[in-house]
């Protein structure tokens, strides 16, 4: 378009000249004379064309295009610089963009329910628990429902794995028991069928299934409504199928709310009498909808007052129990949000370092181009024009970096989506490079371009006003940049090493036998084994047969893989001790087990003995506790031989016969809690987790286990089959990825910072070569010369290290609070990081300064 107009204008002007010449020739002039006269009269054709083009208003664009071409050429002349700048920018922009996308989809995007901002989770806070968030009891729920005015509805839910009986297989699905108003509260109707009628609510035998269950287990049959199924030995009638994308809020672990897995089924919640009548039995999660116009803080305040009234009225169960109202989206993503924000912060810091480095490189390049700018200024280019051209260069760099960054982000997000299955990050699979994310990437690139471009541009063109060719060294500015970069790098490096150290404690000394230790779960509830004394027999037989399987080294049973399972706890009292007020009574998790379980779970016997044949059904009740239990209950006096009571677990007191070591935590920031184990021979559970350790080279026992189980009880499902290594990996996947990413950022930051220091010092060295030559000639020693130059890099690095150490302290507090859960007072890490950076900086300073000591004074003095 523009080319055509240019061409037309050319032709128009030429036709004008042709006609003028023709006229003159017609009047009798010679063609040569006519041509000369016309051209003289016409003036500058180019100027006329230029003036006309200006009328079109494209001049600005044209100048931009010119600047762009010029910028591209000048970048192409220094490919190493361009590549370094583009790569570091691309990494920074790509990482920040990818993490922004994750954060946006995981933490910020509203949940797919009607009015999702009005949805909230209500927790009880129990100060006795390590994580105080606890579910609510039925009586409390009813009181809240009747008396809390800020909520349109308060509904209850709980969920557990269950098994669909279907031929030989027992596919696992998540069974959600929900109060009648739970699904209507979310505002989602079934895609097929309907929700419960009142009479069905009371019986609880009508089920709504998820779209995925419908498609995979029932082949998407249209006549699904009305079919009868058996789930975990309980018969249900299917009355509805939820829409394809529907996922309800559900419990992931004790205090974690997630979205339900694809294989889900919802049935009416029918509380048992023991739950209805016991205010201390807290087993229900609460999903509430705020009334229109009600604010969360007000609702929290009013409900707190209500909780205080309940605590006063029922001190035995409710003393010191408070409430917490959290928005649903915060509950779902609460635990990963700080980690993601921290990672994005790290990526942002890295981008900042990259910008500072590019700015510093641009300054160095600009100094070398001083003559060019001076010439252009002398030829009449205004400062604005020069700044614009330099800015065009940096924006070109930024957009190249941004484009590569977006590509990088796309790759990162692809990887993240694939890893979503193994990471405990809700909605990670939704993370994508969509329009808002792209907008952020473009904004980031532009911002980065201005950030690293503007300062050098203004700085480099300042001399133009002075009209001389004075050398703008800009050393001071670059020293400040170096100090800043060093400080930020210290913070990054320290955060990364803190995370890695925390993570190391998780994976250190991992039992090499974990790889050949398999766990699986099964349940016989609803079968003939479920009642006493058959449940004991089932456990005993299962254990015995497992140990007889070929290749099995040892086997054990439990009801709770400690670090992973539902860590419900109960109140402990020591028989014979003075009564403790209820709010100060310690709590412990409890689990059934046998003696074989302890070595398999890595729990070493510290005192007393484990379970053995003495602990049969008619013998006095016994228990084995862990060291955390001892610390919490009786840190000073020996516990072995004392009698304890576990409220609501056993009727009779249990004698403590042994103390085992604490289990290694699976997660960052989780401390082992008090635990008590009781033998299956005295109190068996129909639902068991078995652990089987194979002899080295023993292979997988799963097929043999499946056969064995089928012989014992054909309807018993086999599920959650995993090696302990898998379990550990799964549990530590998120912190592993997080620390790996952080470490990557930190290493790249160190690299960039080192290059930055090197750049500045070698620039200074180059600038002062002559001076050094003179000093050498006048008798200065090479060492003194070297220090002269090295000083220029030394001070900013030192200042940066000190500032960074202060920043690292703040980072330490943040990371400890949000990610590790435990404050780290370990300064050796910080010192090691500072030392490492100092060494890197020393090398970066030393290498370029060596050059000045090799200067031949005679040569320097002679040159120009």
């Amino acid at each position, binding site marked *: 378009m523009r080319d055509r107009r240019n061409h037309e204008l050319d*032709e128009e002007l030429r*036709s004008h000249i042709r006609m003028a010449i023709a*006229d003159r020739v017609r009047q009798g002039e010679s063609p040569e004379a006519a041509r000369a006269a016309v051209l003289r009269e*016409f003036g500058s054709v180019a100027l*006329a064309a230029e003036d006309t083009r200006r*009328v*079109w208003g494209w001049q600005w664009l044209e100048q931009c295009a010119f600047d762009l071409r010029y910028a591209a050429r000048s970048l192409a002349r220094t490919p190493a610089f361009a590549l370094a700048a583009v790569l570091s920018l691309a990494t920074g922009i790509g990482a920040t963009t990818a993490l922004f996308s994750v954060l946006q989809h995981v933490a910020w995007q509203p949940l797919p329910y009607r009015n999702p901002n009005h949805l909230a989770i209500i927790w009880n806070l129990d100060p006795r628990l390590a994580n105080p968030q606890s579910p609510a009891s039925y009586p409390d729920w009813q009181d809240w429902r009747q008396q809390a005015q800020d909520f349109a509805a308060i509904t209850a839910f709980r969920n557990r794995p269950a098994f669909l009986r279907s031929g030989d297989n027992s596919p696992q699905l998540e069974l959600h028991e929900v109060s009648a108003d739970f699904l209507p509260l979310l505002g989602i109707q079934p895609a097929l069928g309907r929700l419960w009628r009142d009479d069905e609510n009371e019986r609880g035998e009508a089920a709504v299934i998820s779209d995925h269950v419908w498609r995979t287990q029932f082949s998407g049959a249209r006549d699904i409504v009305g079919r009868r199924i058996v789930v975990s030995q309980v018969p249900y009638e299917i009355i509805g199928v939820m829409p394809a994308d529907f996922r309800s809020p559900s419990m992931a672990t004790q205090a974690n709310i997630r979205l339900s897995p694809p294989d889900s089924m919802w049935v009416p919640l029918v509380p048992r009498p023991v739950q209805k009548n016991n205010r201390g039995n807290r087993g229900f999660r609460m999903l509430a909808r705020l009334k229109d116009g009600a604010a969360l803080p007000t609702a929290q305040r009013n409900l707190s007052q209500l909780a205080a009234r309940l605590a006063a009225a029922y001190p035995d169960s409710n003393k010191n129990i408070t409430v917490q109202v959290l928005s649903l989206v915060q509950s779902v993503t609460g635990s990963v949000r700080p980690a993601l924000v921290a990672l994005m912060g790290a990526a942002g810091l890295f981008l900042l370092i990259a910008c500072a480095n590019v700015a510093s490189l641009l300054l160095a390049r600009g100094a070398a181009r001083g003559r060019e700018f001076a010439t252009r200024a002398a030829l009449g280019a205004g400062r604005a024009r020069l700044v614009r051209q330099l800015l065009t260069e940096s924006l070109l760099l930024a957009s190249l970096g941004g484009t590569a960054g977006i590509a990088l982000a796309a790759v990162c997000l692809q990887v993240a989506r694939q890893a979503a299955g193994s990471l405990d990050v809700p909605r990670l699979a939704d993370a994508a490079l969509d329009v808002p994310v792209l907008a952020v990437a473009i904004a980031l690139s532009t911002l980065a371009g201005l950030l690293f471009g503007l300062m050098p541009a203004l700085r480099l063109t300042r001399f133009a006003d002075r009209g001389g060719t004075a050398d703008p060294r800009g050393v001071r500015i670059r020293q400040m940049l170096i100090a800043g970069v060093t400080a930020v790098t210290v913070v990054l490096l320290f955060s990364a090493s803190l995370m890695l150290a925390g993570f190391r404690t998780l994976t250190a000394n991992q039992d090499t036998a974990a790889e050949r230790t398999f766990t699986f779960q099964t349940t016989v509830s609803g079968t003939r084994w479920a009642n006493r004394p058959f449940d004991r027999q089932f456990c005993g037989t299962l254990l015995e047969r497992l140990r007889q399987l070929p290749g099995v080294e040892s086997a054990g049973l439990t009801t709770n893989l400690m670090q992973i399972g539902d860590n419900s706890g109960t109140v402990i009292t020591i028989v014979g001790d003075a009564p403790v007020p209820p709010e100060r009574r310690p709590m412990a998790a409890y689990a059934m087990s046998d003696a074989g379980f302890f070595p398999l779970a890595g729990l070493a016997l510290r005192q007393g003995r484990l379970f053995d044949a003495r602990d049969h059904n008619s013998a006095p009740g016994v228990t084995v506790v862990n060291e955390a239990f001892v610390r919490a209950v009786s840190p000073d006096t020996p516990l072995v031989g004392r009698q304890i009571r576990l409220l609501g677990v056993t009727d009779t007191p249990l004698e403590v016969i042994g103390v085992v070591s604490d289990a290694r935590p699976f997660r960052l920031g989780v401390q082992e809690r008090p635990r008590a184990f009781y033998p299956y021979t005295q109190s068996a559970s129909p639902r068991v987790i078995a652990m089987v350790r194979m002899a080295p080279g023993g292979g997988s026992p799963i097929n043999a286990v499946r056969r064995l189980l089928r012989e014992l009880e054909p309807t018993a499902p086999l599920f959650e089959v995993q090696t302990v290594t898998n379990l550990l990996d799964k549990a530590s996947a998120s912190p592993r990825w997080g620390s790996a990413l952080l470490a990557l950022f930190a290493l790249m930051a160190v690299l960039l910072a080192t290059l930055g220091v090197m750049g500045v010092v070698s620039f200074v060295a180059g600038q002062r070569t002559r001076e050094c030559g003179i000093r050498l000639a006048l008798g200065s020693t090479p060492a003194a010369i070297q220090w002269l130059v090295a000083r220029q890099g030394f001070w900013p690095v030192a200042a940066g290290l000190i500032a960074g150490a202060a920043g690292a302290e703040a980072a330490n507090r943040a990371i400890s609070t949000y990610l590790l859960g435990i404050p780290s007072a370990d300064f050796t890490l910080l010192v090691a990081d500072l030392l490492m950076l100092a060494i890197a900086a020393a090398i970066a300073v030393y290498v370029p300064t060596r050059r000045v000591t090799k200067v031949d004074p005679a040569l320097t003095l002679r040159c120009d």
Partner: protein
Amino acid sequence: MSRIDLLQGTLGMLILRALQWGPQHGYAITQALRAQSEDILQVETGSLYPALHRLEKQGWVRAEWRQTEANQRAKFYSLTAAGRKQLTQEHARWKQMVQAIGNIMDTAPAKGQS
């Protein structure tokens, strides 16, 4: 005969006027203005073409490539309806201004000012 520089802002009006009798190309416009002003007004080509393009951009003239009588390709400009209206307005304003300037310049010195 000395030539006079054009008054600021009048070139557009003159071009529109020159086009009133039919489409013309740039060269013909300069010739017409020169002839009609009896060689007093000389339009610089350096101003003519920017002015023409400005008029085109404002929608007062329209351009098309045609053959001249001498059978050469040239860009012909013609008045649009908006251009015709503009010409009338500018002409009226011009007449007012000439009148006003003439009133000032041609009035005899006031009495008592000798």
